[in-house]
């Protein structure tokens, strides 16, 4: 059965800290790993990773995929209170399967 496991499930840090969120996956016919940020309402897209070892970066956020070890990490440097959210990781398959498998999420709280 396909699964995506995120760790930790929750994390509390102080502003300015650097955090690393983990995501391991087992997805049949794996094609991509996606990260979303969810504040109060809709999840918003952060990154899609398909190639191993290539870092994607957007401001203070970055992510990398390891297809050999079947995991991805999301790094956030110099955290701000606005980074407080649930971060969702999901695995997508290629060809024929439309099931995007989500992890349970990591709830990040950044205190001032």
């Amino acid at each position, binding site marked *: 059965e396909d699964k995506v496991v995120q760790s930790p499930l929750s994390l509390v840090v102080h502003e300015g800290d650097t955090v690393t969120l983990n995501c391991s996956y087992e997805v049949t016919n794996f094609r991509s790993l996606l990260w979303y940020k969810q504040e109060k309402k809709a999840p918003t897209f952060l990154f899609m990773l398909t190639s191993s070892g290539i870092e994607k970066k957007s401001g203070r956020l970055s992510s990398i995929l390891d297809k050999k070890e079947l995991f991805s990490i999301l790094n956030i440097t110099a955290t701000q209170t606005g980074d407080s959210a649930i971060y969702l990781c*999901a695995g*997508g398959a290629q060809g024929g*399967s*439309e099931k*995007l498998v989500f992890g349970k999420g990591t709830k990040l709280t950044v205190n001032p």
Partner: protein
Amino acid sequence: NAGVTQTPKFRVLKTGQSMTLLCAQDMNHEYMYWYRQDPGMGLRLIHYSVGEGTTAKGEVPDGYNVSRLKKQNFLLGLESAAPSQTSVYFCASSYRGQGYQPQHFGDGTRLSIL
């Protein structure tokens, strides 16, 4: 740009009542999805559609039905609501399948079944 719009935003039902949740997208996307989100459970796929007139079961389809009569709309129905269906429901859409393109999500419908 509206993107993905869900109606209603909130609803309280009594056990056994029926209702329909509406999802509308204005991005001409082929694929549409219904998820439910429960505390500590992440997002779980209920049903999805790969084009107008098509529907398919996801991970947790029992107790729900869907229809995609028009490309821009995807309806989720609860025929006889149960307390276990209390959840936040999200609709999403994408131009291609989930492994190829990120989805756009609506703001969710918070549904309580008493």
